[in-house]
């Protein structure tokens, strides 16, 4: 897996957009989806929001090598912050996004101070603990958060005061697609910047980075905080589009599913986060209509096939296919 990452590492800052054609194709696909599936915009919007969450996880895990099973802590904090802000202060969507981003970043920074001193299993467990504690607090503070009933009373104003949220989900879709595109571009710039390269360096050899004078711990905290902001934006979007936040936004299963989506797609290349999320959620959506009771068979098999035969994830598929073609007579 490491070689795969190395091969794709941008060699120069200017190469940020060397896959520009792919980026444009993805945005095109996002626009096309609106017209191809005009009746499923609610679902498509959820996919876009989940992509933001998984991109954030990719920054943490794929680039900086921080294995976490508590990413919902950041997503959920963003969701609750944006929801509470909308209920109590202002229902302006963009302000809400900013509040979500700040909340996600603050929680990431504070918890990161503890988490990022640890490694492997300990890190996993600490990240789980952070999310569980936050979820428990949200459940207990019923007067503020609504507890297990969910945070009620979110009603967003139109975006820029013009585009009102409609029940078909058209505004929500364009809104989420625009935010996702902005986040994606931002992340592309970041991962190709010296800051992003340092993250990769830490992932590959923390010792070496330390030796050349990089403050490894603080770099990790910075990346985690940044990812917290991104996840917080995802959470805020979710709160605004659903107009309700409930405890599942901080739940273990959200963290675990995000991790599965990312590894299915492929780590450390941003595109993996996109493909993994789209594939996982589409299959889930279809299976949920056909035979939900046995859907775990499908996901279990899918996960095993990827780990055993596509260790780089779905984004390794084209390379694998090429290799197979060459081998066959």
């Amino acid at each position, binding site marked *: 897996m490491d070689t795969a990452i190395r091969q794709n590492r941008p060699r120069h800052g200017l190469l940020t957009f060397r896959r520009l054609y792919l980026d444009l194709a993805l945005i095109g696909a996002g626009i096309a989806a609106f017209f191809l599936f005009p009746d499923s915009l609610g679902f498509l919007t959820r996919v876009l929001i989940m992509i933001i969450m998984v991109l954030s996880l990719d920054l943490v895990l794929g680039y900086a090598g921080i294995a976490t099973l508590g990413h919902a802590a950041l997503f959920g904090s963003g969701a609750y912050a944006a929801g509470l802000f909308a209920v109590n202060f202002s229902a302006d969507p963009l302000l809400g996004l900013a509040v979500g981003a700040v909340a996600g970043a603050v929680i990431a920074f504070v918890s990161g101070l*503890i988490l990022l001193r640890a490694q492997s299993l300990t890190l996993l*467990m*600490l990240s789980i603990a952070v999310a569980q504690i936050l979820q428990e607090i949200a459940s207990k503070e019923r007067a503020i958060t609504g507890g297990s009933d969910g945070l009620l009373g979110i009603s967003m104003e139109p975006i820029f005061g013009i585009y009102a949220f409609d029940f078909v989900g058209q505004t929500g879709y364009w809104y989420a697609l625009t935010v996702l595109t902005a986040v994606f571009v931002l992340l592309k710039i970041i991962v190709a910047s010296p800051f992003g390269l340092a993250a990769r360096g830490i992932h590959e050899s923390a010792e070496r980075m330390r030796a050349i004078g990089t403050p490894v711990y603080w770099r990790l905290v910075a990346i985690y905080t940044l990812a917290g902001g991104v996840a917080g934006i995802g959470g805020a979007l979710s709160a605004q589009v659903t107009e309700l936040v409930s405890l599942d936004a901080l739940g273990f299963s959200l963290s*675990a599913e995000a991790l599965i989506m990312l590894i299915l797609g492929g780590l450390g290349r941003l595109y993996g986060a996109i493909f993994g999320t789209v594939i996982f959620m589409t299959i889930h959506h279809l299976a949920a209509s056909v035979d939900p009771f046995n859907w775990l068979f499908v996901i279990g098999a899918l996960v*095993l096939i990827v780990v055993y035969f596509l260790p780089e994830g779905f984004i390794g598929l084209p390379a694998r296919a090429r290799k197979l073609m060459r081998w066959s007579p």
Partner: protein
Amino acid sequence: MPAISGILIDGVSYGMILFMISVGLSVTMGLMRIINLAHGGFALLGGAAAHWLTTIAGFGFVISTILAVASVMIIAMVLERSLYTRIYRFTELQQVLATIGITFLMIASVNLLLGSTILPIRVPELLSRPIDLGFRTLPTHRLMVVIAGLLTAAALYYLLERTWFGVRLRAAVDNRNMAASLGINTVKIYAITFSLGAGLAAFGGILGAELLPIDAYYPLRYMVLFLVVVAVGGMGSIAGSFFAAIALGIIDTAARYIVPEYGTIFFFVAMMLVLTLRPNGMLGRT
């Protein structure tokens, strides 16, 4: 003070149940160093088999337990030879994903065959009565688990520290290639140890079922709990898991006595404290 003795008695007996259900994990994950999220899956298979044997096939509790544990050990052996041999060489993250995939398939199978509701295991009437300790009563079942836990701990200690198998196993997990070149059949050792871990998972699942009831989603519901015990105890240490389980049992019970409304928060904060102060767990090796 009755409160303190209550906390200690309930805490130790709960801790022993935590130990019983996670000792299998400290074998596969602690000793063999694989992130084995399928541990709960093996416990589920054991519990589901015991449910089927006691309620549908009509066997007694003891016979059912033996049969269920034995069949899980056989299934584990097959899985080890087919799927796990490659998992050993995976990165940590791939291990997480692979073993979670296996868990999903186990859950889906039990769900399909036995449904998604609780799968009760019929225990002898004797075990479901309270027993009078003089100053207070305790469920007989708890007492049995405490005894079984102590025996299991002792047997494992003996097996790992006092037998040739234990010596070879420790050599194999420390440096597999070196052990192999010394003529130790590491393939066999790994298969046996993994099967043992799965068998212990099944045993713990069955014994703990009064407290952590078995249903198809058991592995996901309690996954975090198993992992906490092993992480706090420290990878590579059965003794660590033992003490961690008891300590966590007492902490969790104390929280329930004193501040029940903050129980969960208390538990996780305690865990974070331990892991922040001792990142490798209580008895973990660096």
